[in-house]
């Protein structure tokens, strides 16, 4: 049961962020960037699909699609940062940068999992996440050290998304159990490296690291910000409206 829950958390973060990023399609600041963002979304949908297939096997009852399209808000365990709206391009980049830095560290550890499926899925995800991290880093530099306007927008985005970074390193009883048994990752131990990597890019981008203040929490218990309900009602509309249909 813990393993299923643990797998769903990973799957949900990829799925929800992919759904968000795919909203950029046809709206990118350049054609090249439109394509790059769709690539990231496609990678994340692919990752979500892999983890959901495993979750479906563990569950023994629901298909991957049912897991994606038939669960309610309180049954989703994605990190709250992933459900936040796209905002402007700087918001999307900062969200991606925080999350990809975290994912990079997380999958590096999870690749060593004693659970073979999780390990294999992580190896594959890690390859893609390296590219996502590279992409968001290069934009952090360009936006931070670009114009006054881009600097301000990026600083504002750092400020906004900071409150969602506490969750990345939280550990509840499921995490502790998974970590102890060698299946999962000790998330709290990722923080030192995450701070180091994030500080380095923030400095290079001539931006300022926000001061730690109130941190959001709750996704491990299925508690979310108001953003998620709207995202799900759109994403799940067809399978919910036509429960007997196959597509």
């Amino acid at each position, binding site marked *: 049961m813990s393993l299923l829950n643990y797998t769903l958390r990973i799957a949900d973060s990829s799925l929800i962020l992919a759904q968000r990023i795919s909203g950029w399609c046809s709206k990118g600041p350049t054609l090249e960037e439109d*394509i790059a963002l769709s690539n990231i979304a496609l990678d994340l949908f692919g990752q979500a699909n892999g983890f959901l297939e495993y979750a479906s096997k563990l569950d023994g009852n629901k298909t991957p*699609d049912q897991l994606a399209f038939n669960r309610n808000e309180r049954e989703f365990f994605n990190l709250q940062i992933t459900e936040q709206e796209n905002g402007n391009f700087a918001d999307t980049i900062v969200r991606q940068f925080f999350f990809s830095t975290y994912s990079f560290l997380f999958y590096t550890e999870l690749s060593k999992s004693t659970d073979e499926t999780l390990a294999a899925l992580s190896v594959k995800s890690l390859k893609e996440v390296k590219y996502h991290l590279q992409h968001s880093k290069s934009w952090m530099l*360009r*936006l931070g050290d670009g114009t006054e306007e881009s600097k301000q927008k990026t600083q504002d985005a750092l400020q906004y998304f900071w409150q969602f970074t506490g969750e990345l390193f939280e550990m509840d009883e499921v995490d502790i159990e998974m970590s102890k048994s060698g299946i999962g990752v000790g998330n709290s131990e990722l923080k030192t490296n995450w701070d180091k990597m994030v500080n380095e890019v923030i400095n290079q981008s001539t931006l300022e690291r926000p001061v730690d203040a109130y941190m959001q929490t709750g996704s491990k218990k299925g508690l979310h910000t108001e953003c998620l309900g709207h995202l799900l009602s759109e994403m799940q509309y067809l*399978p919910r409206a036509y429960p007997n249909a196959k597509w």
Partner: protein
Amino acid sequence: MNEQKFQEKIDLERKIEPKDWMPEEYRSHLIRQISQHAHSEIIGMQPEGNWISRAPSLRAKMILLAKVQDEAGHGLYLYSACETLGISREELVQQLHDGKAKYSSIFNYPTLSWADMGAVGWLVDGAAIVNQVSLQRTSYGPYSRGMVKICKEESFHQRQGYEIMAEMAKGTPEQKEMAQDALNRFWWPSIMMFGPQDSDSPRTGNAMKWKIKRQFNDELRQKFIDQTVGQVKVIGLEIPDPDLKWNEERGHYDFGKMNWDEFWSVVNGNGPCNIQRLDHHKKAHSEGEWVRKAARSYSNKQEIINA
């Protein structure tokens, strides 16, 4: 002299390359045609983009997103091909925004149900392929090579669209109704994608002589109809044309009268989504302005540092 050599080359089926001499009219005809084609790929992202967030399965979502992303790639190739004729992408986008350049009118129709993702992939990409296969033999090298690349991806799009339609046609009664409704709405605009009947098409003359265009609109349209009728039958839907029937003598399907008044009215701005599509593009472009500026400013600074 130049002109004669140019024509000889064309008659020998040699490709014209960017550095070769070409009549100004050939150049401007190509710019108009290739840019219209590029804009169509880009504006065409919107009607399908409209359903990415609501695709009904993970697989459907990935296929659709990858498809729309392909169209962005097609737009890129074509803008690059057009740039070889001495005009920049920014100028081309400006022409689009000013209403001086057109895009295919089919994208001014709304996508109202998931079945429309089937209809668009199957019929709109299907019609585009018939046209583009013919354009693989166009006389301008970069355009011709672009078409070869693009055609490979388009045939995937068409198959995927047909698959959606087939799945819905054999699904619940509601799904079948959606499928038929999508076919009803997209059939006529799709067959009008090939452009006016040749008897009414004033520009065909030089385009044929210069082998920019290789086949007549009516020929291409007939080819598309002939190949699609069978596909419709297989999945048990009906083409919304009571006059459609096999003509043994011609070896082709006869079909009903197209509504050219509607066609021209949509081309000239009065379609259901004309304003929306252009506004969407303008908005994305202007919201991206500060990002492009930041990227330019950053790369200028880097150049100074590295100098």
